[in-house]
């Protein structure tokens, strides 16, 4: 997979070099062989689908994770960061999508947190600190009052503060992880101007983004990752958006996820003109009996938020949700459950399960009122119900009493599925059905979803894995920045059309 890439400018060592880096979390392999070489004086784009391993790679560079294998060099020297402090000291700065500043402290205090300049009496030299902050902003060509509190700053300004902090630490490598996701057009332009001036000062920048217009406008080089592996590195002038998209997706997917042909029945779930200010708008779709509807799009496109609103965990401003013609009340998960909607949430460990609680209690959590006889519930009744679902879903656990948090990711997901199938839903909304679970369990989950649809259940499947969406879904909806940008039938949906709708604003019609 890894081809030598030192074709361009072989002068001197690279600012940042990772070669054949591997990283696994238990059974889940996040990185197989990631390679990234970033030259000084350049802005380097790192692109790939969700789950391609970009974030893991960044976290290794930042010192948050330690690699299992491979080489990691900084300006030609081997490095091995065991903490973020070591990474910072070596001149690496990571600017996250949403910076974490101390809201009550001033901008200046945030920049110099933990290393305030002192005068000869050992007291903090506020004047020096302030003028230094002022100097940093002038250098970056931005106007931010150094005395104002960080609270209330726009995300764009918060990122600038983080960049200022990085420069004051003399960071040589700046990694920006989807910095433009929450920025307006003007703010993006300002950020890019700052990025270019940093490059021209001799720093190296890594820019992670899903927006190809921006990548092509800003970057000099581009590296594509897929499935935890390095795919290619090119000068931006030598490639095109189409080429990059093809490399990001690049695999034959249709055979992997066999969805059985089912007869599609009546409309079960109908969502009409759902709006939630700043989160999603004009969401309309329906799910019929026996159908799997895929909801694709990038992370942050608002897919999970729609699912949460439909199920009632969150509210919405306007619109309606009906199931078999009957309205589902707003912001009332209990009512949605009772009418036959189930939601397997995105974050299994935070939203799906009570990790410290037993397999039995978790499996029966959603049906606890139904299990009660004359208002009373016993461990015996719960175990009996849990046993049924655990055995049918083939959950591997030492006992029903085992805390669910000690199970593997795949078995945890089966417990969540069992918990919701036990409610006998008409509509199953499943958010990232196979995230973080091993390949074997993955195909079990897919077979299961297919069987459920075969029995007449309507399934809305949110997934960031394109192959999963394309293989499983009868229809694909694509969301981008809070709107549905494409309705694609199984026959016309392919990787390019979905990726295009997920990254471009223009509306696609089937």
């Amino acid at each position, binding site marked *: 997979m890894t081809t030598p890439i030192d074709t361009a400018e072989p002068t001197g060592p690279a600012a940042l070099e990772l070669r054949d880096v591997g990283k696994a979390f238990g059974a889940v392999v996040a990185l197989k062989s990631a390679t990234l070489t970033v030259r000084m004086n350049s802005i380097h784009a790192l692109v790939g689908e969700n789950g391609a391993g970009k974030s*893991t790679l960044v976290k290794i560079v930042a010192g948050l994770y330690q690699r299992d294998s491979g080489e990691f060099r900084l300006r030609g020297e081997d490095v091995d960061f065991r903490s973020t402090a070591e990474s910072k000291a070596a001149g690496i700065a990571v600017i996250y999508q949403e910076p974490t500043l101390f809201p009550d402290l001033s901008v200046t205090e945030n920049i110099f947190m933990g290393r305030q300049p002192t005068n000869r009496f050992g007291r903090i030299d506020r004047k020096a600190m302030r003028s230094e902050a002022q100097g940093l902003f002038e250098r970056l060509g931005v106007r931010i009052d150094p005395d104002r509190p960080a609270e209330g700053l726009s995300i764009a300004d918060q990122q600038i503060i983080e960049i200022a902090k990085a420069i004051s630490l003399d960071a040589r490598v700046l990694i920006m992880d989807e910095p433009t996701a929450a920025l307006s057009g003007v703010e993006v332009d300002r950020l890019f101007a700052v990025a270019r001036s940093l490059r021209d000062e001799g720093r190296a920048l890594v820019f992670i983004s899903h927006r190809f217009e921006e990548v092509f406008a800003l970057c000099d080089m581009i590296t594509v990752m897929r499935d935890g592996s390095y795919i290619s590195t090119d000068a931006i002038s030598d490639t095109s958006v189409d080429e990059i998209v093809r490399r990001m997706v690049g695999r034959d997917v249709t055979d992997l996820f066999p969805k059985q042909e089912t007869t599609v029945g009546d409309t079960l779930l109908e969502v009409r003109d759902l709006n939630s200010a700043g989160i999603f708008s004009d969401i309309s779709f329906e799910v019929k009996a026996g159908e799997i509807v895929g909801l694709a799009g990038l992370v942050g496109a608002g897919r999970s938020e729609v699912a949460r609103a439909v199920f009632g965990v969150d509210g919405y401003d306007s619109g309606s949700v009906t199931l078999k013609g009957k309205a589902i009340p707003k912001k009332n998960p209990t009512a949605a459950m009772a009418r036959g909607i189930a939601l397997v949430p995105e974050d299994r460990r*935070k939203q799906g399960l009570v990790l410290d609680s037993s397999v039995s209690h978790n499996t029966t959590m959603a049906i606890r009122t139904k299990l009660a006889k004359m208002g009373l519930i016993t461990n015996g009744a719960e175990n009996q119900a849990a046993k049924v679902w655990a055995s049918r879903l083939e959950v591997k656990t030492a006992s029903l009493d085992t805390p669910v948090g000690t199970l593997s990711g795949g078995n945890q997901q089966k417990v969540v599925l069992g918990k919701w199938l036990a409610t006998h839903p008409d509509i199953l909304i499943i958010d990232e059905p196979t995230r973080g679970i091993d390949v074997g369990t993955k195909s079990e989950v897919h077979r299961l979803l297919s069987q459920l649809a075969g029995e007449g*259940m309507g399934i809305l499947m949110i997934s960031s894995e394109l192959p999963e969406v394309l293989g499983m879904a009868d229809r694909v909806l694509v969301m981008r920045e809070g709107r549905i940008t494409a309705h694609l039938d199984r026959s016309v949906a392919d990787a390019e059309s979905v990726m295009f709708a997920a990254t471009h604003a223009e509306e696609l019609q089937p």
Partner: protein
Amino acid sequence: MSDSTKTTVTPESLNPSGRADAQASVRTYRDYGTPLWRRILLTREMAIIALLLVVIVVAISTVRGFDRPITITYLLLDVAPILLIALPMTLVIITGEIDLSVASIVGLSSVLLGTLTQAGWPLEAAALFALVAGALGGALNGFLITVVGLPSLAVTIGTLALYRGLAVGLLGTTAVTDWPEFWTDLAKDKIGDSPFPVIMIPFVLLAIVFIVLLHFTPFGRGIFAIGLNDEAASFSGVNVARTKFILFVLTGVVSAFAGIYFTLRFGSARGDNATGLELQVIAAVLLGGVSIFGGRGAMHGVIAGVLLIGVLASALRLANVTSDVINIITGVLLVLSVVSASFLAWLSKKRQRPGGRKRGAVSAAQA
């Protein structure tokens, strides 16, 4: 879910692994990973109960007069308010919240009882009014915590001062000491010839109600789930806000009831009645094995915890130990119990993961 037109997903029809034999052989699951005796005996609650028994045995054999029935009577009369309030407090703490205003509600309820009977109300009506006031006090706590979204620690520190202020303000430094003898006698009376005071009857009834509520109802399952992970609980259809609101109201009512008992037992309604009682209640609940972080605990442990503190205090008092020393001993016991809990948790975690892998490393797999 009574809708008969639902799609019928029967577990029998599923076969995720696709293996032919999977349909035929139903996997068998053990209900529990550990044998029954271990699950019953090797718990924190049992450790407290055992400690309680040890202290009782030692006290009977070494402290003169401890084994007299009158000692039991006075012991129970004294701890009754703590026993009562500990019941709802356990539920509140298991959801991960806390209520520091309980002693002030005791005081307010006492003062209301006093002023209203002084104004000519029959005692029964005044008591009912005090209970309603307690419910309202709890409802205000619940409103500020669940609707406004403030932390319970801050809210109930505020209402601790507010309710106490109202109580002292209503009655000033005076006390109401004129009560129908029937009721003051009843408050101190014993059940027949037994050494147990009459207040144990409502206590046992309430204890049964709270034990069932916590351990044997869907509502109780929700309480534990909220304490461990309120987000997952709300995704499972647990109404987190409503559950907490109900618990604060219940705590208010039971505290008001304890206030009525307190007043009649000592024959005195004062604004400063039961000052500091909230800390004794919380100390006993934590000693009884309830986690201050929520999600863990059992009622039998709490009751043993209250009795342990009561028995210790009573035995030491009989042995002429001064009350400041008693406080020191209770405090040390509480700290030890909390330390031992974290120590045991640390120990079992060490045993489970010999590699000592950090939690973060596991959850990172989902990132």
